[in-house]
């Protein structure tokens, strides 16, 4: 009997240890590369952190400006239509709503009193000046890889901004998620709290790309699925996830579900301009990432990102291969069997003038639907979000605009048109209902109570 109990206990411990080990291995976003790593100061290659060579001689604030773009602090620390960096952006997570905070140098409501050490603790460890834990909506498990110099360059830039008086909005989280102190435990398991370690088996270009993608750009925060504890699960690194009601797509080298079939130039263009012919344009959060962050990178840095992305192991997902041939010119041809009559009617009146019945826009490549991942996503999540929220991007080429139809059209209308668009132009038609669309509206909403918001 004792023997059996012993075996059971040993088995349970083994499974628990195995699970803990699996969790811990999932923490490191660069472990997939496998090579041996060294501390930055022991790295023999040329510098892979900080700003690119052409800015090496620039002053601290100028360097900070480049790094803050690369780290894209602005996207989350700015409310829609609000003052940049004054916070108030809402994160709708499964257990409530968290708001980003004011990181202008206001002494009462911003970070005006932060010392360098306090700023580093916030960026590397997720601990704010009063000692409380930040929620990992602030991507400190990624920023922990930033060097002290780079983090402090960001601080130097932030301290040149006009201080804005903007008190933090009250987070709305259910118990136990409203207990910030519990995050100390979470951090022990999920925040490595270590600076970037170059991989000596990889090229300088790869390491620069890794630093840009992991320490600065924190791509995984949207593109990597999360585990039960809401930490990144790097066992499926970059395999895609639903973040803030939008799908961040699979960017692994899988040829069907990921970007394995894209050529280098397409990835380069998509990152640096938010558009690549044949793959369409970015909207939603990726559109912001292109316009606020990636488009500011020098070409060498974008090439480094391409090199790094190329090396991400393939992970399949539920996404089919994209259809790259346009739909027929007549509305009567194409996927009629799957077509939704309400969807077709709406498409004719509202969408066809720019997107054309073929899906190839006569207006701008940004509006072409052929080959776009979102259109070839049978969940139609991003198609519905784009219809609801529209597109309003400021690119080097000028403004890229699509009206937001969320206020003028019902959930059923939006579901119908998203189903029609995915069936006509994509690999597989979606089956969204009005209720699904209502849920998507809530996930991407910037209002604490979507029901009370004017027209959602």
């Amino acid at each position, binding site marked *: 009997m004792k023997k059996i109990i012993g075996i059971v206990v040993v088995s349970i411990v083994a499974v628990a240890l195995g699970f803990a080990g699996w969790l811990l291995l999932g923490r490191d976003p660069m472990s997939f590369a496998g090579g041996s790593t060294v501390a930055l100061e022991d790295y023999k290659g040329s510098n892979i952190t900080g700003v690119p060579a052409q800015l090496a001689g620039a002053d601290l604030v100028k360097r900070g400006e480049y790094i803050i773009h690369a780290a894209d602090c602005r996207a989350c620390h700015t409310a829609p239509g609000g003052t940049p960096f004054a916070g108030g952006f809402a994160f709708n997570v499964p257990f409530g709503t968290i708001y980003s905070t004011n990181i202008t140098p206001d002494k009462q409501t911003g970070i005006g009193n932060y010392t360098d050490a306090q700023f580093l603790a916030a960026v590397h460890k997720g601990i704010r000046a009063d000692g409380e834990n930040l929620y990992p909506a602030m991507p400190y498990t990624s920023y922990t890889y930033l060097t002290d110099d780079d983090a402090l360059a960001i601080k130097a830039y932030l301290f040149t901004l006009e201080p804005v008086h903007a008190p933090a909005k009250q987070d709305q989280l259910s118990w136990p998620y409203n207990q910030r102190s519990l995050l100390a435990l979470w951090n022990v398991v999920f925040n490595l709290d270590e600076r970037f370690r170059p991989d000596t088996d990889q090229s300088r270009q790869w390491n620069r790309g890794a630093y840009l993608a992991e320490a600065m750009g924190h791509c995984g925060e949207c593109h990597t699925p999360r585990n039960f504890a809401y930490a990144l699960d790097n066992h499926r690194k970059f395999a895609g996830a639903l973040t803030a009601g939008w799908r961040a797509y699979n960017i692994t080298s899988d040829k069907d579900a990921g970007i394995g079939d894209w050529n280098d130039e397409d990835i380069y263009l998509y990152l640096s301009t938010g558009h690549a012919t044949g793959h369409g344009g970015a909207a939603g959060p990726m559109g912001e990432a292109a316009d606020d962050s990636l488009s500011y990178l020098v070409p060498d840095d974008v090439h480094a990102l391409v090199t790094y992305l190329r090396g991400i192991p393939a992970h399949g997902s539920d996404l089919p291969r994209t259809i790259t041939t346009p739909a027929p010119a007549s509305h009567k041809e194409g996927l009629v069997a799957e077509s939704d009559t309400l969807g077709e009617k709406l498409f004719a009146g509202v969408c066809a*003038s720019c997107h054309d019945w073929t899906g190839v826009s*006569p207006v*701008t490549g940004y509006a072409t639907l052929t080959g776009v991942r979102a259109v070839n996503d049978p969940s139609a999540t991003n198609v519905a979000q784009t219809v609801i929220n529209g597109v309003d991007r400021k690119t080097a080429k000028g403004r890229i605009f699509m009206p937001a139809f969320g206020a003028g059209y019902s959930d059923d209308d939006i579901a119908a048109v998203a189903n029609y668009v995915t069936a006509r132009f994509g690999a597989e038609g979606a089956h969204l209902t009005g209720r699904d669309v209502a849920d998507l509206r809530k996930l991407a909403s910037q209002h604490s109570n979507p029901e009370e918001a004017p027209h959602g």
Partner: protein
Amino acid sequence: MLTLTINGQSREVDAPDDMPLLWVLRDHLNLVGTKYGCGIAQCGACTVHVGGKPVRSCQLAVGDVGTRAVVTIEGVGNTSHGAKVQQAWMEGAVPQCGYCQAGQIMSATALLDGNPNPDDSDIDAAMAGNLCRCGTYIRVRRAIKSAVAKSA
């Protein structure tokens, strides 16, 4: 300096690349037959032909026109279908206030260019994006059918 082909003529325009074609037509070239309606490609009043396709000129950046030929309401009467559509429009007294009608005629002509014998469903698919607040839709449909009859 941009060179555009408009209604068969080569025109030089000094305008920024991101200026909408509609602005260029109306303010630089004084082709004011094309109307500004909603400004967000949702009403169809600004429709012109670009490379043979009906395009909302309020959303098309002039720099993206490239070498594609532009035809406006001022020039569409010189095309075979355009002349028939305009004739049918006059005979049917289609316009009421008239503001949307240049766009309606451009969309109707593009429809016939691509499909000389459209049925009701084709007319819906091509014309649904052209709004008319006077509600001339029934006369628009009748005139398109009458233009088709002229071609037969």
